[in-house]
Each structure stands twice: as C-alpha cells, then as structure tokens.
C-alpha cells in the first residue's frame, strides 16, 4: 500500500482514542472546560453509563458564535498561545484536543451564550461532521450534550464495562472535582437520580459532606498551615484528611489536586498513608482531598493526554509536604473516638434477631459523658488516661480471645492479641530508642532451619534483629544459630516465632522503616495469641499496660485493640428506653 496522508476523520478517531478512553474521560474534559470557564454552578447528567447521554451545563462566561465554530477545531484552545506558556499554565485544559476528540466519536451538541450576547448559539457535530452554527435559546454559560458515544467505534464500545461500572468511574471524577472545587456548586445526576450536590459555599467540610455524606464530613480534619520549621518551601498543601475511624477498602477516597488539576499519583497516596502509620488496619485506606499548590514551573502536566499524571521536579519535597500536613491534622484529631459497636437502630422492632450486631460503626461517640451521668451511672465521668482510654474493670474473656471490660460509658471488648502486640511494640520502641534492647542469652545455641526466602530476609534484617534483642548468626547452609532472644520474649517457641517474624517480613514490612517493620513483626509474633485462656490477674495486667501505652487503640499493624458498646445502646436493646 503506498504511503498516504490519513484523512481528517481517521486522525480524529485516533486522537480521540488517546483523550477519550471511556465515558468518564468525556465527563472529566467537559468538567474541566466548565471550570476553566469560571462557572459557579455545574450540573452533570449521565444516562446508561454515559453511552446514551453525557451532559454538562455550566454558568461560565460562555462562547461567542465565532468561538464556538473554532472550539471544534483540533488544537483550538483559548488557554495557550505558545509552548512557553505551558510553564505558567493555570487552566485545566490547554491542548485543544478535548472537544474535537469527543466530537469525532459521538454526536455532540454545544450551545453557549456570553453575558453580553442577546442570544446564544449552538453547533452540532455528528461523528466529526460539523454542522452550521445556529441561534439558540440558552441562559448564560455553556451546555455540552454528548450522545451515542463510540457509536462509530464498535471496538471501543465493546470494551466498555457495564453501565453501572462506567457510571461509577464517572461518579468518581465528578465527586473528586466537586470535593476539591468547593466554591463551585456541582450536582450529579445518574439515570435521572440525583447522586449528590455541593453548595458551592467554599467550605471544605461542607463540600466533603455534600459529596461523601455526613459520616465523612464529620470525620474530615482540616489541614492547618504548618509552622515554618515543618513547612516545605514552595509547596502549599490545603484540604482535609479523614480521621482514622473512616476508612475504605480501596484508594479511591484519596483525591489529589495539583494546581487545581486532578491527578493520580502512587507516590502521593503512599506519602499520605504513611502519615496514618499504624492507625489504620492493613488493607484499609483513608479518605482525603488534598490540594497541592506549587510553582507551575516545577511540575510537568503535559506527560499524558488525559493529564492524569504529572511529573514533579522534586517529588520527594511534595511527598514530604503532603505527609507533614496530614500528620499535623491527625495529631489534632480527637483522641477518645473509640470504635463503637452499635445495634441496628430498629432491630428489636423487626423480625430480625435481637442481637444482630452489625459491623462496628466508626465515629465519635455522640452520647456525651453528661448524658451518661444523668442516666444514673455511678462510674466516674470521663475518667481517662492520657492515652484516651478510660479506666477499665476487667470482667472476663470471650472465646479465649476478647477481654470484656466495663468502663464509665459502657462495655468494652479488647482483642487480647492486638492489645498485647501494641504493648510489646511500644516496649520495643522504648528500648531501642538510641540503644540496643535487653536480651536473654540461651543455654546452648538454638539451630533454626530457614527457607532460602527466609534466609534472604534474615540477611537483610540482621542488624535490625540485633537491635531488637536477637543474637542470631548464620550457621552452615540454610540455617541460623540463635544465641539470645529479646528479654520480653518469654515462654514461647523461639524457633517458630523467629520463622513467623521472617515470614511476615518476606511479604514486606508494615512499618515506616525496616527497623520499625521488624519491631512490628516481633511484637506481633511474641505476643499473647488469640485463643489463649488468660487468668483475671493476667487480663488486668494487660489492660493496665494497654492503658499506659501511648497509642492504645490500634496494634502495630493498625488493627483496632478495642470496641466500645455504649451504655445507651445496651439500654435501648433491652427496651429500657
């Protein structure tokens, strides 16, 4: 076949493939255009996962008929005139690809009116075929309706997921922008149902409540400006992070905007989660919306047509700023928000089992100490340790695993393994701060056979293990000799526990340094296990030690150590009120 120039239509389709991957990309492009147009109100509507209709209506400054005709030309943009301008870019769009790309693969109707024009204009583009510009009746702003997306690209249409999945992707886009652009009132309607709406009041928490609901709104901790010592020069981080009590099983709740542009960054997600270190359960992720503002010259947004990825000149500085901002906000979080066990509100009225315990709900205790006191509870009000754990009276053990205790505000269930792990973890940290931990020598060296994998991780961790109190040396092929163990490791099978520690480290550590990871694994595998019956004095001692620890509410892996069942809930369940 002779070499020939591609037709405009083909070029359009190919370029569209880069920008318009799926309905959510269309939503993102249109949303960004609306924001660039200075809109105060934006409404987004999606039908059938975006295949039937995507419509974005804004009240921005609109376009004149001439602009409208130009807008659908490739690389036509109002936002950039020369490449150098990229360095000082403050708008979301700039490539001039979005509208023509969308118009190449869908039937698009654009209507717009500027403030000073008496009447609006509209233009229709059907799969690249541009129609004439007509007059149209429309309020100030722009309305873009995209129908029959990918109808002319069957291959791509085939690769779309179910309508509900595609709607989910689109929802994530709209909710991220809505939560970030707090000054813009954004509403989203999917298949005729209003999914959420923000008030555009400019308040972070109000926007978070509007988008993610009151549970997240209540847990949102505003980021505060850092003091000079902690601040990273040239990088400003604003927004909010969710309290550790509100988590997700995925990272979709982590929203980052860099200079107003929504981006995906593993590095930033990682940096943020580091700030939650040991406060979250393994496999749970926080919720946060963070704006990172920095000199446009230090960030390259032109990495990818969808602009979802950016390159930082100094990525570590940005990560540091994110982490410090989140850490500062978390330190200010209320310390007494224990996870609570709550009964389904109307469980006793229905046919359900009366003791149907739903999964524990997380959140601050709405029942104040005052209320409990008026209910005639003789327990001292708000008597707590500095750590935020109330003084507890141990009552017994359930299933050889959970300690039941009574406190001033009801019943507490304590996971003995997680609690002991936290206690040991802090003991190890105290011991190794600035020195080596105490250790107990063995009568004769214990030879432990290791798998090649375990041996590899042992070699990597030898120094850390020594700091924590293990005296372990290589011993022939495939085994090590243990000469001393940490002093706190008592009455346990040393060989088995050492292997468990190494096995966990093979899977990657849970701490923020390797030493920390080794400490967490050591604490986990030398502590009391679940299913081990404890005597009352043993349980009392454990609870007292937990009360004394500095972060008693989660073990080193971030699993909760205790659950709270409020007195009021018990009374409600027994129909006392």
């Amino acid at each position, binding site marked *: 076949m002779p070499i020939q120039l591609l037709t405009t239509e083909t070029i359009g389709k190919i370029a569209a493939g880069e920008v318009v991957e799926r309905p959510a990309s269309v939503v993102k492009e249109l949303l960004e255009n609306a924001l660039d147009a200075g809109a105060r109100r934006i409404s987004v509507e999606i039908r059938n996962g975006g295949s039937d209709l995507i419509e974005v209506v804004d009240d921005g400054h609109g376009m004149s008929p001439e602009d409208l005709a130009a807008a659908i030309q490739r690389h036509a943009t109002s936002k950039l005139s020369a490449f150098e301008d990229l360095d000082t870019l403050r708008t979301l769009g700039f490539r001039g690809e979005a509208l023509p790309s969308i118009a190449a693969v869908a039937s698009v109707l654009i209507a717009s009116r500027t403030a000073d024009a008496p009447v609006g204009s509209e233009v229709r583009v059907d799969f690249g075929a541009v129609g004439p510009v007509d007059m149209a009746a429309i309020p100030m702003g722009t309305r873009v309706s995209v129908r029959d997306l990918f109808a002319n690209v069957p291959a791509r249409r085939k690769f779309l997921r179910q309508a509900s999945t595609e709607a989910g992707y689109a929802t994530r886009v709209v909710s991220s922008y809505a939560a970030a652009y707090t000054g813009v009132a954004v509403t989203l309607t999917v298949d005729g149902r209003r999914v959420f709406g923000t008030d555009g009041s400019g308040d972070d928490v109000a926007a978070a409540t509007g988008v993610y609901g009151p549970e997240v709104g209540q847990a949102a901790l505003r980021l505060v400006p850092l003091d000079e010592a902690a601040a990273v020069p040239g990088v400003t981080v604003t927004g909010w992070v969710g309290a550790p009590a509100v988590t997700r099983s995925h990272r979709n709740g982590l929203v980052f905007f860099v200079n107003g542009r929504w981006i995906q960054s593993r590095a930033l997600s990682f940096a943020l989660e580091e700030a939650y270190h040991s406060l979250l359960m393994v496999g749970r992720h926080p919720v946060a919306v963070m704006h990172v503002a920095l000199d446009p010259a230090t960030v390259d947004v032109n990495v990818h047509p969808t602009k979802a990825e950016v390159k930082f000149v100094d990525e570590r500085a940005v990560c540091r700023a994110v982490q410090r901002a989140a850490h500062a906000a978390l330190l200010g979080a209320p310390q007494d928000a224990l996870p609570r066990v709550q009964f389904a509100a109307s469980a006793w009225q229905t046919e359900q089992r009366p003791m149907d315990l739903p999964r524990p709900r997380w959140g601050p205790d709405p029942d104040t100490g005052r209320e409990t006191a008026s209910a005639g509870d003789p327990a001292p009000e708000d008597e707590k340790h500095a750590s935020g754990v109330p003084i507890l009276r141990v009552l017994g053990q359930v299933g050889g695993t959970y300690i039941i205790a009574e406190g001033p505000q009801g019943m507490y269930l304590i996971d003995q393994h997680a609690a002991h792990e936290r206690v040991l973890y802090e003991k190890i940290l*105290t*011991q*190794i701060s*600035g*020195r*080596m*931990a*105490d*250790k*107990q*020598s*063995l*009568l*004769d060296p*214990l030879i432990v056979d290791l798998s090649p994998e375990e041996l590899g991780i042992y070699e990597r961790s030898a120094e850390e293990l020594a700091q924590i*109190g293990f*005296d372990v040396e290589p011993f022939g092929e495939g085994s090590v000799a243990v000469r*001393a163990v940490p*002093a*706190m490791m008592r*009455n*346990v*099978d*040393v*060989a*088995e526990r050492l292997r468990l520690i190494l096995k966990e480290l093979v899977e990657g550590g849970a701490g923020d340094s390797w030493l920390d990871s080794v400490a967490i694994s050591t604490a986990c595998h030398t502590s009391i296990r679940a299913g081990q019956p404890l005597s009352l004095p043993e349980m009392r001692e454990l609870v007292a030690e937990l009360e*004394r620890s500095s972060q008693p509410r989660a073990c080193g892996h971030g699993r909760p150590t205790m659950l709270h069942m409020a007195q009021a809930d018990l009374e409600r369940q027994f129909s006392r009120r």
Partner: protein
Amino acid sequence: MKVSCLQDNLQRALAQVSRAVASKTALPVLSNVLLATDEGRLRIAATNLEIGITTWIGASVDEEGKVTVDARLLNEFVNTLPNAPVQLAVESPRMTLSVQSGRDKAGINGIDAEDFPVIPRLDGDAFVAEVDPQVLREMISQVEFAAATDESRPVLAGVLARFEGSTLVLAAADGFRLAVREGELASPVPERLDIILPGRALRELARIIGDQTEPVRLAITASKSQLLVRVGETEFLSRLIEGTFPDFRQIIPREFNTRLEMSRDAFQNAVRRASYFARDNNDVVRLTIHPGEEEFMPGSVEVSATAAERGSSQSFVDASVTGPETQIAFNARYLADVLGVLKNGKVMIGMNGANQAGVVRSAEAEDYTHVIMPMVIGAQ
C-alpha cells in the same frame, strides 16, 4: 460387688487418685474412678492416660466385682459422710453404685469397668531401683521448675532421670537455665539408664510421696514406655517422653573468674526487693560484685533494679568475694526460683563475666547445681 470399708480410708484414697482424673476429656470413662475388689482389698484407680494412680484400702469383701463412677461426684459425696463404715454395692447389669453409710445413701450411675484403661502393675519388670522418699521429693522440687513450659522441644518440657551406678541424677533445662541434682540409690543398678519424665508427672509424684518414709521403688515397664513408682500402698504410673536429653554436663562451667559466698536469706531478700522494680523492665536484676578492699576482707554484692517509669532500688549483701569486681544481670524470676529451693545457709555463685553462664549452688553441698544464662543489657 459388695464391700464395706471405712469412710476416712475411702476419702483419702479418692483424694489421692483424683489428681489423675481427666478434667476435660472426650472419653467419659476417664473422668471416672475405678473401684474393684482385689484379693480382699478395694483397689481404687484413675488415669488421664498421661499419668495413672492406683491405691489399695482395707475392706471386707462380700462379693467380688468392679465398676467406674464419676470421680468428682463420689469424692464429694463421701467427703460429707461421717467417719463410719461405708457399704459399696453394685447391682449389675445396671452399673449403679450404691454408697451407704447408716441411713444416708446414694446411687451413682456408673460405666462398665471393662471400658476403663488397663493400668500396668509393678511385677516382673525389667528395671528396678530404690530411693529414699524424702531425698527423691527434694530432688524433684529442686529440678522440676526448670523444665520448659512450652512444648516446642518436647525433651526440654521433661525432666531427665539418669540411673548410673548407685546414683540417680535429675536434670531439667528450659533453654535459659539448667538444674541438676544428684541423689543416692539404695543399691546400685546394673546398667546405666536415661529416661525423660513429664514435669507435671514428677510434681504429682512428689505430692504422692508426701511424708512417706518407706523406700520408693522405681520401675520401667518392659516396653520401656512407662515409669511405675511404688510409694507405700500407692502405685504411680507415668508415660515417658521419647528423645535424647541434651548433654547438660558440658554446659556447666567448671571454673570461675569470680566466686562469691553469702547468706542465702540475705541474698534472697535483696533479690525480692529488686524484683518489684524489675517487674516493669523485663525482670532485669543487676548484680555488681565488689571484692573486699584488701585480701581476706569481706566484699559485697550490690543488687539493683531500675524501671524507667517506676523507680529503682539498691540493696547490699555482705559476701566473701574472690576475683575482680564484675557486673552481671539475671532474670529476677530465675534467681528467685533457685534461691527458693536451696537449703538455708550459704549460697555460692560463680561467674565468668557478664555474658557467660552463672552457677548457683549451696556453699555447703555439691550435689545441686543450677546454671542461669545472664541477660545482656543493651549498650547505650
């Protein structure tokens, strides 16, 4: 079965064997006690398959027979009866034991004695040794506590008993400490024999020995899998732990750089005081040994403990010290354990530096040796 016996004999026997009754078992008959007529006496036995206890009491037998009934129920009922003859009777096939004392009576539903495990008897065994009961009891108390409490190395959860010539050696080690005690046999044994006994079984044996004065006969069953002990009118059976005990002799240091002797009572008190502070710091107790100013002048041992949050303590014990000034740290519990089983008088401690094993002995007797591994205190 139809027998009559005295209430206090029956009560004592039931209390004796009840220690071998299984508390949680899938086999109901193991929570029962066996009552059987045996050559004009009543045999009472219980076993949890780990240990077994059999004892005999005098009884007048009118009709031979045997039965098993719930040990706890029978024990509790008999305890409340007056000290008077008790009539026991079983009417087969219903296996109900009727227990009668005067007008008080009970019928206890039982299980056929044929279901009860056979407990081997002491006769015609391959290996027999005799030992003084009070010596054996003391030996057990000095060694048994050093056995490991976790089951990771089964031999270490047991106590080694070595019969050799005319001596019996008991040894136990849990990886951090070692206790070795020698005692004399009534007569030499023909060949050396090593067996390993569960620590728990030895504790029961010491309890059964109580204040008995008749020599204790130890025998190994022909299968070499069980130990049988005859104590007065009672026979005790224990399974043996299979395996080879580590060579403990090589662990015991023979010479010491530093050696001290002091009053056991004074040292024990000092350790106890320090242990209250050591509790919050991994039970670390430090010993600082100060030799006398001049030769033949008494020195002292400084016993100290520090817990960062609680405070610290310091005690001094006069001691005769040979060797240079030195410091060593031990687990307070290990020290307390060994000091508690030493006889009154003087204690000897030998050591070769902060990282080497320490030896604790009675200064007057060489037959007991206790080795404790030190704790290594983290460097700043």
